[in-house]
């Protein structure tokens, strides 16, 4: 793969270029990651030593005090409740969404029915509709259904997405149709075909979609901010964003909470990194 673009005149020149490229990339990687190191560092710093100048990456007297406080003593364990809320809603949306998006993706990929193209274009068109437009009526619908300030207000709208259906359709279109025909002749029912042929064959795409769903739901802000109003119903992200002004708590505490919020996603990201890249490529449809 090296020197793919060729044309570099001598071997020595090309070595120099490679070295330069590595230097640039190391610089960019450092610039990308260093802000998060500041977050981690602040979370280990006692509040009264925090705002020091010049800024340091390694805290002078590192301690777990902030972690202890945010997890156990802050507002009677409110943080734990936020963590549960986020975990529960993310889990429900991911499992339910994977099933529904795969089912719908399969139908749009392999089945013929009246109105298919129109419906599919309408679904795709929703990708261009900004959240600011749908926010108010969606909020009112949730209110009318009596779901305001419940988990369902988060879960139900997240159960299916245009992006998810599109991605699964792209993937399932590439599976051989003969497989489905064969099992149909063998007498398998439609649902059986979906469950025991399509789902197993779609696992790579489902893994990618699953990670995207987890991360998007875990990190969502505007919608949970609007529909979950009581302190105990908040998600981690909304809690961390609103808590500062409400309780006037210190920065180190917020950073400890932020580290605990990002950590599960970081672990997931490291474990599933190959699916991630693959998934983005599938979503882009190439």
């Amino acid at each position, binding site marked *: 793969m090296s020197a793919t673009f060729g044309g570099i005149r001598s071997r020595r020149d090309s070595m120099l270029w490679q070295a330069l490229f590595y230097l640039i990339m190391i610089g960019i990687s450092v610039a990308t990651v260093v802000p998060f190191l*500041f977050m981690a560092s602040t979370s280990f710093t006692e509040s009264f030593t925090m705002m020091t100048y010049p800024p340091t990456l390694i805290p002078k007297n590192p301690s777990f005090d902030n972690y202890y406080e945010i997890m156990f003593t802050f507002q009677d364990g409110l943080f734990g409740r936020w963590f549960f809320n986020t975990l529960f809603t993310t889990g429900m949306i991911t499992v339910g969404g994977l099933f529904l998006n795969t089912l719908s993706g399969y139908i749009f990929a392999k089945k013929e029915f009246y109105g298919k193209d129109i419906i599919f274009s309408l679904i795709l068109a929703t990708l261009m509709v900004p959240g600011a437009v749908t926010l108010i009526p969606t909020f009112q619908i949730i209110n009318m259904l009596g779901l305001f300030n419940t988990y369902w207000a988060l879960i139900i709208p997240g159960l299916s997405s245009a992006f998810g259906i599109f991605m699964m359709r792209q993937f399932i279109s590439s599976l051989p149709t003969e497989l489905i025909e064969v099992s149909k002749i063998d007498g398998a029912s439609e649902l059986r075909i979906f469950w025991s042929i399509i789902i197993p064959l779609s696992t790579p795409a489902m893994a990618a979609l699953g990670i995207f769903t987890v991360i998007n739901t875990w990190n969502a802000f505007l919608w949970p901010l609007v529909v979950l109003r009581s302190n105990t119903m908040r998600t981690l992200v909304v809690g961390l964003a609103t808590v500062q002004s409400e309780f006037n708590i210190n920065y180190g505490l917020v950073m400890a909470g932020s580290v605990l919020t990002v950590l599960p996603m970081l672990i997931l990201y490291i474990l599933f990194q190959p699916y991630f890249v693959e998934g983005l490529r599938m979503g882009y449809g190439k």
Partner: protein
Amino acid sequence: MSLTSTAQSTPRPLPVASKRRHFSRKLRESLFWYLLLSPSLIVIFGFSIVPMFWSIYYSFTRGGMLGDHPFVGFQNYIKAFQHPIFLQTLRNTFQYAILTVPIVIVLSLVVAIIIFQLPKFQGFFRGTVYFPLITPVVIAANIWAYIVNRDFGPLNAILKLVGITPIDWLGNPSWAIPAIVMMEIWRGFGFYVIIFFAALQSIPKEIYEAARIDGALGLRIIWSITIPLLRSALGFCFIMATIFNFQLFDAVYVLTRGGPAWKTSTVSWYVYLQAFESDNVGFASTMGVVLLLIILTLSLVQLRFFRSDIEY
């Protein structure tokens, strides 16, 4: 499974007698598929498509979250385009996008090409540049608030080293937008790097071989072969970046709450304020619809511009 191999290649014979029977069978099947699609369709129609039209209707009415919505015709639209704060947020939104989109695309294209050149650690660097995207904007923005803090932030500490007087990034009207733009670029560019990288991988190597035999050199190959072949990826990235950046909300909420003096407010932020704090649903919907029209127009123009007939 064994005797089916012939069956699949012969088309199922249609009853010659009736097109009508075929029609009714397809109708029955359609109903079956709609039944299975219904949960997805209810969610997407109920929480995206219906709300969109509902919002368009609201944009011609006056009223709050509850109660009546009397029809007022185009009054809200006339008001919007004479409304100094809305016009300010509209200008700001364009400013964010105009600053962010080109920089983020060029930066990520260059980074993707550099990573693509590297003989080793491609995966590592891709993983690192994408990393900020797995963190919530809210948290990234919180960190950024510290980075650009006037008194103890690292950015000003660096500027001081090169002899520049510290800047009050988020408090100074002319620096607040650049500070937020920097954050958006830092957080978002990894996404486009991955897309460009995937597109680079899909270009057949023979094309480069041919160019090299013809005596073309490095930068020239990139300029006249790689970039044109990346046309559809470029189009995709431009459209996505435009859609994302015209909807800026989270960062504004955390970093500046729209201040100082509305200088960092975006349309999305002002819609949120009008709807949920001033209970002004009609006017909020109007501004939302204006944003929708802008995004739609820009997306369609870009789609047209980047339409590619290159197959490889």
